[in-house]
């Protein structure tokens, strides 16, 4: 028993702790899946279809089987039902048309890159050598590639991605505020605006993107234990275990999935992949550990892509710029299969087109379409960047039409801070926010008025380099998600999260979370939360995750959920530990439990200096020599938390670009943002999340696009052609925060992982358009390449559609290498 400890000098919450994870990562002591080597391990290489759509007429594996150190070559027919299936967890409508998705199809391939055979050899190099020897005969079929044509194919007699389905449309999902009782009739609002107000009608393209996490996906399967162990570079070890069990017949209790160090995901590793299923089946069949690691080219070709929508938008407003209605009609390209949550991505966007505004009427419809391209699914923001882009671009167009500053038009329509909690026209209840405060701060950081003055001056003197200012006032729904809401949307699982706190005998603490980090810094931020609430030193907390044998329960990491859902589970588990410890403390201090106060990690008897630290109590409980009668000798506690609401971070982002009107070159000049993400646990980690998010969003605006040619071949299939930004392309950002604590979790936190990406894309494109609007431009298609910007300036178009070609590597006229 000790006297009361002084409270910690510095609160853990809000402290810019350097990360616990870094010591290993900066010294190369890492556990990437591809690092794992097991005795007798065999290596896999995939034989992939070069055709976007083709019937497999024969596969001759004999030459490959004779290859050096080849163990076997297997096809889908060889593996049969053992290969399981790739699941769709979110059929967005009851009658969704969902093509079967075998990891290795037996008769027909539906996109270029799909696996048709797997080579197993003693080394990865030998497996790849032999993969070249597998002879596959294909009968090429017409491929459905263009999204708009594919959407109409069942009526026009056009090409079908899966001929036996009779249509490319998998689902039509609709929301109408009048029908839902959350708002008025959008058609009436449109009719009125057409007659006596302002009607903005636009069609925007959300180009196809590739998540392009830095660590290529890798999977190791060891079938030699009582549980089959799978290491995978995945965001979703728990969901993967479920899918393996559900589709292969192997009992869930016989499967252990480990996500060791995972090198980024951004939604791209939120998938149950064919490669994981094939590796699992091969390992079981051979009884030997196997490993498959994709090349970067394979990753770009076959790991799921993101975005890829056409958005038809109608915004109705009064002449003064008050919005009276918004109608959204999407076409969403799901690619060749309905991925695990692929069909749900546009539906997640459905609730966000109304953004921070008080629109009285709203209608949303998405038509989800199959094509013969790589499947699409979550990519950082998943549905919400698309929605935010559309509305923030439209608000700028409305401002231009009314003839006022873009920030003024937003202010006329946004929810005032006194109006929270606010139920939106999409039926969500926003718990807290202050758009005025975030915008005021962002304007101040930006030097908004001075930049507007400079813009006017440069316009007046006809500078060939024009300045453009772009605004994005975003909000998002994150913290996925209340299980009941997911159920009402026909999602196949819940949205809770699990945590467990183990008080070890020596006083250190093991904390288990069902969230599964892949670069976010959970070990650090979660340690801060536990250290703060339990009053133990930060260094005494160990965060365990990403292994279903340790973390038996969880729903993993995506949708900015780890802190706001997983963190709340953690808080509740810690609180249970404290409540379990209270009677022990009372017993040992010979006091009444009612007379005890817990603070700074110790129970003290009110009005005395007598107290006992929780770490001492843990030791006493371990010994169990002197506990209250009938008490279980354990303080360990767990909690499973189902959120009551989504979580609504917001922010104001301001971007300045310089556009060379002679070349179309866009140069970032300044980017500031003020995000309101509630209470911040670790400002350093938050800043990193914002910076990284910003660059991914900016990259959509300016550089990145996955392009297929007319045969359905991905021509941006390497880092030579897919333009990931480099340090030389980007700038230093200025970020800050306002704080409107969330009212739906104990810590008042909001998600931050996706914020930067959601907000930045429209800020940049608004800036580019703003720079050249006086030249008659009101839209430029993303990515805003110099060519597109130049064309827009010169012919008043939006810059033209994507041409189906990559950067030329060869000069065909010369017939040689350039």
């Amino acid at each position, binding site marked *: 028993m000790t006297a009361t400890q002084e409270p910690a000098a510095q609160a853990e919450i809000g402290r*810019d702790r*350097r990360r616990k994870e870094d010591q290993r*990562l*900066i010294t*190369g002591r890492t556990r990437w899946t591809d690092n794992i080597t097991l005795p007798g391990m065999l290596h896999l290489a995939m034989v992939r279809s070069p055709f976007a759509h083709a019937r497999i007429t024969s596969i001759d594996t004999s030459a490959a089987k004779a290859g050096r150190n080849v163990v076997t070559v297997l096809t889908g027919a060889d593996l049969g039902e053992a290969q399981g299936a790739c699941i769709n967890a979110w059929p967005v409508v009851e009658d969704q048309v969902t093509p079967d998705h075998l990891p290795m199809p037996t008769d027909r391939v539906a996109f270029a890159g799909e696996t048709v055979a797997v080579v197993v050899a003693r080394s990865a190099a030998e497996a790849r050598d032999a993969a070249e020897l597998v002879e596959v005969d294909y009968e090429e079929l017409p491929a459905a590639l263009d999204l708009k044509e594919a959407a109409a194919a069942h009526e026009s007699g056009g090409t079908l991605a899966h001929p036996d389905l009779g249509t490319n449309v998998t689902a039509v999902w609709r929301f109408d505020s009048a029908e839902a009782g959350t708002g008025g009739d959008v058609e009436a609002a449109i009719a009125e605006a057409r007659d006596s107000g302002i009607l903005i009608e636009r069609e925007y393209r959300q180009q196809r993107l590739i998540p392009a996490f*830095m*660590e290529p996906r890798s999977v190791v399967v060891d079938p030699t234990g009582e549980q089959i162990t799978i290491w995978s570079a995945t965001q979703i070890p728990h969901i993967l275990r479920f899918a393996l069990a559900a589709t292969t017949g192997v009992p869930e209790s016989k499967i252990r999935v480990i996500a060791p160090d995972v090198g*980024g995901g951004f939604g791209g590793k939120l998938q149950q992949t064919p490669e994981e299923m094939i590796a699992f089946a091969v390992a079981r069949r051979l009884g030997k550990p196997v490993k498959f690691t994709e090349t970067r080219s394979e990753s770009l070709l076959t790991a799921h892509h993101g975005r890829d929508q056409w958005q038809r938008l109608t915004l109705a407003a009064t002449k003064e710029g008050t919005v009276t209605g918004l109608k959204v009609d999407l076409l969403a390209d799901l690619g060749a299969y309905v991925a695990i949550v692929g069909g749900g991505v546009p539906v997640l966007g459905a609730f966000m087109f109304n953004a921070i505004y008080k629109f009285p009427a709203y209608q949303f419809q998405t038509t989800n379409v199959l094509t013969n391209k790589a499947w699409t699914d979550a990519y950082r923001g998943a549905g919400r960047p698309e929605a935010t882009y559309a509305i923030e671009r439209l608000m700028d167009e409305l401002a231009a039409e009314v003839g006022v500053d873009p920030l003024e038009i937003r202010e006329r329509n946004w929810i005032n801070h006194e109006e929270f909690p606010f139920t939106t026209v999409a039926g969500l209840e926003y718990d807290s926010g202050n758009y005025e405060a975030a915008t005021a701060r962002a304007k101040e950081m930006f030097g908004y008025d001075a930049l507007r003055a400079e813009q006017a001056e440069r316009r007046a003197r006809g500078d060939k380099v024009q300045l453009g200012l772009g605004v994005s006032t975003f909000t998002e729904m994150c913290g996925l998600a209340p299980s009941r809401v997911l159920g009402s949307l026909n999602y196949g699982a819940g949205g809770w999260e699990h945590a467990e706190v183990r008080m070890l005998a020596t006083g250190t603490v093991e904390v288990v979370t069902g969230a599964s980090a892949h670069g976010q810094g959970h070990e650090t931020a979660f340690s801060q939360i536990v250290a703060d609430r339990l009053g133990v030193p930060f260094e005494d907390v160990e965060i365990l995750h990403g292994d279903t044998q340790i973390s038996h329960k969880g729903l993993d990491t995506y949708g900015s959920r780890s802190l706001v859902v997983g963190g709340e589970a953690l808080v509740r588990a810690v609180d249970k530990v404290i409540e379990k410890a209270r009677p022990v403390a009372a017993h040992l201090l010979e006091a009444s439990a009612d007379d005890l106060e817990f603070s700074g990690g110790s129970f003290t008897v009110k009005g005395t200096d007598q107290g006992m630290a929780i770490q001492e109590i843990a030791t006493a409980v371990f010994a169990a020599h002197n506990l209250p009668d009938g008490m279980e000798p354990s303080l360990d506690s767990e909690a499973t938390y189902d959120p009551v609401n989504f979580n609504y971070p917001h922010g104001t982002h301001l971007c300045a670009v310089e556009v060379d009107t002679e070349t179309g070159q866009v140069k970032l000049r300044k980017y500031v943002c003020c995000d309101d993400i509630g209470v911040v646990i670790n400002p350093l980690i938050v800043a990193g999340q914002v910076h990284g998010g910003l660059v991914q969003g900016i990259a959509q605006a300016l550089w990145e696009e996955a392009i297929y040619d007319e045969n359905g071949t991905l021509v941006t299939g390497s880092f030579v052609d897919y333009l990931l930004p480099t340090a030389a392309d980007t700038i*230093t*950002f200025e970020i800050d925060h306002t704080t409107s604590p969330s009212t739906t979790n104990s810590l008042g936190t909001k998600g931050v992982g996706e914020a930067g990406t959601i907000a930045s894309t429209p800020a940049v494109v608004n800036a580019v358009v703003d720079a050249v609007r006086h030249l008659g431009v009101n839209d430029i298609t993303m990515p805003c390449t110099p060519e597109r910007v130049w064309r827009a300036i010169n012919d008043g178009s939006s810059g033209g559609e994507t041409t189906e070609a990559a950067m030329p590597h060869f000069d065909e006229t010369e017939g040689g290498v350039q």
Partner: protein
Amino acid sequence: MARINLTVDGSQVSDDVEPRMLLVQYLREQLGKTGTVIGCDTSNCGACTVHLDGTSVKSCNVLAVQADGAEVTTIEGLAAEDGTLHPVQEAFRECHGLQCGFCTPGMIMQTVDLLKDNPDPSEEAIRLGLEGNLCRCTGYHNIVRAVQHAAGTTEGASA
């Protein structure tokens, strides 16, 4: 097979390798130096950057046989023997210059070389000097801060 003799992170090693084996494959598969990673197949990403006789190279762009007789330093050999971190390693941690950590070995090795050539680089020189190393997590902001910090030109991270 060809016999190569080289020094890796201070230890002499000798192996028979296939002539086509890349240095990064040799480091990872034969020596277990898995701190050095492979991020692409077109030498764009720089995740595999190591020092070959004191100069940064993308080890996916060098054959193992080309390293015969050379001295190779990987991320695993950068800290002092007593575990004291190299100032660049320390700077990346201090400035939160990494998130998932996959590009980090390459970023750190490239930064060490960059600062050797130019101990007092401007922000532009840093950005150009790291152009061959891709990162998808940080947006490069804090990587640039880390390089400046290592060069002694800033006070560490600002949140």
